[in-house]
């Protein structure tokens, strides 16, 4: 489902280039829950962004559902991402002026067309947010915000869910609820790639892949 083959990424910093990601192979199959663990700066988020088609790697190949992400044009990639990849972030990234229901339906605006509003309500119900539909993110607890973000990511039934430290701001109880939803999703055939530095969270994944703190510097020229 998700296949990163020998992907690397460096970032410029003055005259130097910081290696964010050494050659890395990651594979997540349908129905598989993979946790990517490593210390800060090990390239976990970079890896996730590459897998989501948001960050072109310096080398290597990134594909989802057999499609080479970076062989597509920007617009093709945007459409593909919309239909196949769901993102969940540690900071939730909910749109502050939209209600819970509207946030769940926000990917429709990103796609430029409104679809079935019933799907948004069903997701809200599924994630225990039915009593919060008209509330804005500012009125939600951290757990509710993350559940809203999760519901939003699943609006178009993506094949892959990419989650970046999604329990980082949650207490243990809410973290378990959210992880429970991820397991449900995996159980329905979805693929999850979860970035975390929390061993306990990682332990709930079917498989854990470790990233060493391999940051290197080399001369830009």
């Amino acid at each position, binding site marked *: 489902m998700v296949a990163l083959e020998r992907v690397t990424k460096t970032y410029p910093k003055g005259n130097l280039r910081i290696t964010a990601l050494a050659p890395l192979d990651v594979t997540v199959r349908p129905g598989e829950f993979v946790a990517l663990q490593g210390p800060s700066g090990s390239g976990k988020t*970079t890896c996730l962004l590459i897998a989501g088609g948001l960050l072109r790697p310096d080398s290597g190949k990134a594909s989802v559902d057999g499609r080479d992400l970076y062989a597509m044009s920007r*617009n093709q990639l945007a459409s593909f*991402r919309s239909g196949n990849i769901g993102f969940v972030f540690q900071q939730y*990234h909910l*749109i502050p002026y*939209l209600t819970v229901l509207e946030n769940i*339906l926000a990917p429709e605006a990103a*796609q430029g*067309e409104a679809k079935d509003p019933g799907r948004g309500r069903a997701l809200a119900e599924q994630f225990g947010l039915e009593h919060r539909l008209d509330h804005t993110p500012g009125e939600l607890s951290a757990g509710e915000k993350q559940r809203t973000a999760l519901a*939003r990511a699943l609006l178009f039934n993506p094949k892959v869910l990419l989650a970046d430290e999604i329990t980082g701001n949650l207490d243990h109880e809410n973290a378990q609820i959210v992880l429970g939803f991820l397991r449900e999703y995996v159980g329905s055939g979805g693929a999850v790639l979860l970035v975390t530095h929390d061993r306990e969270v990682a332990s709930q994944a079917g498989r854990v892949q470790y990233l060493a703190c391999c940051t290197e510097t080399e001369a830009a020229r």
Partner: protein
Amino acid sequence: MTVWQLVIKEILRRKPNFVSGLVAVTLSVAVLAGSLTILRLHDLRTEQIVVRKEQETRQRMKLLEDDYRKIMKNLGFNLLIMPADQRLSDFYADEVVSSYMPDSYATRLAQAKIVTIRHLLPSLQEKVKWPERKRTIVLIGTRGEVPSLFRDAREPILVAVPTGHAVIGHELAETLDIKAGDPIILFGRKFIVSQCNEERGSKDDISIWIDLVQAQEILGKPGRINAILALKCHCAGNELAMVRRDVAAVLPGVQVIEQGSKVLTRAEARDRAAREAVEAVAAEVLSRKQVREEQEEFASILVPLVLVMSALWIGLVFYANVRERRSEIGVLRALGARSSTILRLFLTKALLMASTGAVAGYGLGVLVGVIRQGEVSISLFEPRLFVLAACTAVILSLAASWLPAYYAAQQDPAEVLREE
């Protein structure tokens, strides 16, 4: 959820941002619409003033025309009958007749049944040096009115100067200190001044009127006259040819001209009034044109200045909005939004700002223009002006927001998300 809903929600959430941009659009459109309304009302007012003044002139001219006709009816024309060999150029230059004809012509004319000729006043006049006072005068000998044989006897229009008496022109009386009752010596003869005339502003002011026979003796022209003045002729100016024919049938050796009269004076005054009225209208139009040019010049500086300032302000407002929504844009991109969708998000907002600003600015501008010009009798909705205002608002908003919107659309979502 659509882009449109997202835009509306965002505007409602960040009202100050939208309102500050809206104020700039409104102000620009208001300045444009206000300036054009002021110019439009100025033109309209000029048109009204010209029409009103032309109407007033026409009415005044009509009244003068009526007066003219009444005067014509009551007074008739004054005609001057002179010898045929009198050169009109000399007469018009000197106002004195220098050719002569028998004084019996007056009697022949009086006896002829020409209905248009009335009140005949034969005279002999010559410009001479008054030897006793060393002054150039016009000596006029007159015998008063020649009675008409076929008309009822009426009081003569002018009383003859009695023998041994003289009537003195205003200028002579003033400068020579002559008063009624004073004796004067004229060419060695003694006369009693029976009257000093009021100022007439013509050669009459240097004239002396005496009895015709005495004048003929003094000037050495016995039995001769050189003019017959026909007063109150019952004919209009365009019937002069007919009078000439009638007179020529009786007196073959004469010519007839129209003499200056009250009627002519008034007609001239009327023409002068008409000319002055036309000139006054032209002066008013010129003055208003100058004011319009000044207003136009002011507007040509103010409108572009406000447009540029507003464009800069709107650009800053949108740039601030883009900065504020960095994370939101990054997430939308992560959720599958294309660059064009992000662009649409901001440009739709700009269009909403433009349409709202166009309506508000147009209303405000026209209102200010109307109040400024004190003119409320016009239709406040001028379709062409509104279309211009709307186009200006749209172009201004889109142009000013384009760069920030493009910047937002080109934003790298990975960069934003990594920063978070």
